[in-house]
């Protein structure tokens, strides 16, 4: 228990540092802004109670907000992702259900399942985030395009990180 909490804290710190120091500085034409820190929400075990998941989401978003100078933006989007995660998990549950002790990784549930899971959560998070950022429905389709392009890159980076984590 203590061991896994330590492990998740380490993963969270590494991901937030990656986001703040590396991915926040990829400024590619304003259309592609990958937000990889959402992986913290993805990797939490399936048995975590929803309120704890929401608290983790809140503090993750708040930390990223503090570093990017956008109070509330990432917090609200990450909360929406955290809130919807139990429903998404129920929706795409594998045939034998989830093993209570294991983490939600590519290693345990396979590439196909992990990719679908990642894509849905990332899309929910990014769509919320980009519409909250603009906060208006003018340029609706341009915001949609930005969200979709960024989601594609985020999903790519998360799969890449997860792939290397699996090999280790």
């Amino acid at each position, binding site marked *: 228990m203590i061991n896994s909490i330590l492990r998740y804290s380490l993963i969270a710190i590494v991901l937030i540092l990656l986001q703040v120091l590396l991915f926040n500085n990829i400024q590619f034409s304003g259309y592609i802004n990958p937000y990889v820190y959402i992986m913290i929400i993805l990797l939490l075990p399936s048995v975590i109670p929803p309120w704890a998941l929401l608290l983790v989401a809140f503090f993750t978003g708040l930390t990223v907000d503090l*570093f990017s100078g*956008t109070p509330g933006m990432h917090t609200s989007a990450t909360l929406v992702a955290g809130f919807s995660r139990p429903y998404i998990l129920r929706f795409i549950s594998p045939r034998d259900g989830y093993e209570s002790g294991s983490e939600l990784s590519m290693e345990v549930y396979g590439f196909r399942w992990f990719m679908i899971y990642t894509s849905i959560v990332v899309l929910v998070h990014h769509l919320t985030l980009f519409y909250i950022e603009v906060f208006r429905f003018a340029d609706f389709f341009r915001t949609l395009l930005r969200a979709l392009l960024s989601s594609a890159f985020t999903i790519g980076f998360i799969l890449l990180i997860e792939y290397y984590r699996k090999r280790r």
Partner: protein
Amino acid sequence: MRNLLNFLVRYNNLIVFLILESIAFYLLSTGNNYHNSRLVKGLNGITRGVEERVSNTTVYLRLREINSELASENSRLKNMIGKLSSGREGRVTTVRDTTFGQQYQFTSGRVINNSVNKQKNYFTLNRGTNQGIQVDMAVISSQGVAGVIVGCSQNFSRAISVLNLDFRLSARFRSNGYFGSLSWDGRNYREVTLNEIPQHVNVSLGDTIETTGYSAIFPEGTMVGTVSSLKKTGSDFYKITIRLSTDFKKLSYIDIVGNLKKTEQTVLENSYQ
């Protein structure tokens, strides 16, 4: 009572979610406003330390480029001094007044955090109230306009970038003086649009756009950019796209401009509204 408890147990996740989400929206509505700087007051914490370190590294990697920019600015200023002093040679003037004719005061500083990829971009400077910086001062780079200070802590200040959907600037043509309102449409970080220029005005590609000084924030005649495309729309106005002379991706050394006569101007303007 029992029903209420049942309800709370059943929907406790939704309740936690709504409470946390409302905190987030509270932060969103108070922290992001144009002139609200509640969060800026706490700027001295850990995040600034990390940002300053990152900025130190990136600036070091770009020293050669920064050097050449500063050198070219130096030579431009020397040319100006040359022009000014040539007319005064041989004349003796004594000036008792220490603020003789001076309207703008410049403080140099460095950008330690910046972004161009959001819709509402802000940047952070390593100068604050201890160095005499106040809210509503202008920020200009050696190439042109950059932003306006919206919040100060003791040693840092936060400025709204030209690349922000909420930013407005009064700008005019250097050649004929027609002025309009300048704003960013959130698409390209090199381009802004100039509105309210009527179609009878003679406009051509490459025309220089500069600030008007009407707002008493930017000094009159500060470079903004050049016209890169213009379209006649159905209305009476042109749709003019301007290529910014400042490259916001490379913004590092800037000047913060305070207007010494600003209070005088605004007090006068407000009393005759």
